[in-house]
């Protein structure tokens, strides 16, 4: 299983109600539903991915997260609100990541995020030594064809989630060899250098 998913599952209670924002073909939703008996819902912008998720019997809405989430009720007024909103490796591909985070916070009790770290040392070296935009295993696209349109470092991301009004309950970074480690968001420097991905539990 993907390392960020492994961390997510440590923090998701079985049978809870979960919204996967940018759910793709629903691979995470399937595990949520079939293994953890969660009430799993998804949203994704791309028709073929949604059709594929629906063909698996999942509940997915096709749409732009930053547009459609505003129609969901706020957690304060809806007893059926989502226990968790998931942003698994998708925020960097959103047109309006700040708005998406704000909406995720509005509709869910906790938000779980994984995000690639542009500040990862290999990225920094490529830019510093070659003078070229980083192309790595994780960020494998050339700059002109990448679906990832909003790059941030873990430090940048921590600034944004605080601006949006979140508390950071847990923060992890995943090293190049795939090892997850916890770090303190007040001292993110090592994580920001050695984490290829950051994983956050926000409330």
């Amino acid at each position, binding site marked *: 299983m993907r390392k960020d998913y492994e961390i997510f599952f440590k923090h998701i209670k079985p049978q809870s109600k979960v919204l996967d924002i940018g759910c793709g073909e629903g691979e995470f939703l399937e595990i949520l539903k079939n293994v953890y008996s969660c009430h799993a819902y998804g949203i994704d912008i791309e*028709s073929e991915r949604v059709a594929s998720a629906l063909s698996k019997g999942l*509940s997915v*809405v096709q749409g732009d997260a930053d547009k459609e989430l505003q129609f969901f009720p706020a957690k304060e007024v809806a007893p059926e609100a989502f226990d968790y909103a998931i942003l698994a490796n998708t925020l960097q591909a959103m047109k309006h990541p700040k708005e998406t985070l704000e909406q995720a916070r509005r509709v869910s009790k906790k938000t779980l995020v994984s995000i690639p770290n542009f500040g990862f040392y290999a990225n920094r070296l490529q830019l510093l030594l070659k003078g070229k935009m980083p192309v790595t295993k994780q960020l494998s696209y050339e700059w002109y064809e990448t679906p990832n349109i909003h790059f941030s470092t873990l430090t940048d991301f921590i600034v944004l989630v605080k601006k949006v009004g979140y508390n950071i309950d847990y923060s992890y970074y995943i090293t190049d060899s795939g090892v997850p480690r916890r770090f303190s968001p007040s001292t993110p420097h090592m994580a920001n250098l050695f984490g290829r991905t950051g994983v956050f539990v926000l409330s």
Partner: protein
Amino acid sequence: MNQNTQEFFFGPSHRKVEIGDFITLCKNSEITLTSGAKISNFPVAYKTFGKLNEHKTNAILVCHALTGDQYLLGEHPVTGKPGWWEEYVGPDKPIDTNKFCVIVPNVLGGCMGSYGPKNINPKTNKPYNLDFPVITISDMVKVQHILIEALGIKKLASVMGGSMGGMQVLEWISKYPENVNSSIVMAASAKHSAQNIAFNEIGRQAVMADPDWCGGNYIAEGKYPSKGLSIARMMAHITYLSEAGLQRKFGRKLQNKSELSYGFDADFQVESYLRHQGMSFVERFDPNSYLYITRAMDYFDLAEDFGGSLALAFERTKCPVCVVSFTSDWLFTTEDSKQVVRALSASSSDVSFVEIVSDKGHDSFLLPDESLAKTISGFLSKLEL
């Protein structure tokens, strides 16, 4: 419960065709329609495909569109053509009749055996024609609800339909949520748009402007408004397709000729195609039914019954709802579907939505489409019967 046959007139030649499989409802009671008119002791024609299980938990109600009917599978008794949803229903099809029992009633106001303007008014012994009460989508569904009850089904495994059928599905999940386990709404809307009302109005005016319509009494007069109904159908048919689809299929190709005639014959294939569509339609569809059913669509505005709030309309909806739109459908647009999806999201319903890429316009839900097939079968796979 009666199961026998009735005879009806079809087309300009007033051809008599026997229509079977109907049930008489409200024999000793009456229901009040939206207009305030009361009806009782009326027939509803319906077909079933597949077997109802012991506990009657595997029934799927399919609601047909404006000019559809209960002949979803098998040979149509009037046209002799195959059913209108053969692609999606049958053994091992997305709606698997080995597993589900599919029930398709002809709508109230229809012309394939259900209570409609060409039924005989017992007071005059003549067809009702325009004395038939004006009906609404809500009335159609009310009658379907009574039918389901009469069949002993407490909860439908699913209700589904496209276009006007989708309107009926929305009515079902809003007004009778306790009787529905899941639903699929295709190429539909929670209210008829100004543009759609406008198209319907042209269709009705074309029928009524035909002198052979005879104020609705064409059967008694031995006439038939073929021209009017055919023009209505030609115009409506364009709205079911898309510009790109028409271009792909016909372009500017000429019909059985190599040069323009410099006259008003059908020079272009698209003209000839539309004329054919119009002419074959009049053979099977009743002109007065066309007036009544288009009117029912125009009157549909689900939110209006709930103080203008569509979210309130779905407040009691708890079943999974799958909404499907098609990219090239300009009659019931993706935006129309999104309004429904947003209202369902607002009421914390279990809603799914996909906009399927197709250049086949509004009619896409009737045509073979792999994405639609997968969506339907995937959605039905999660049902526990």
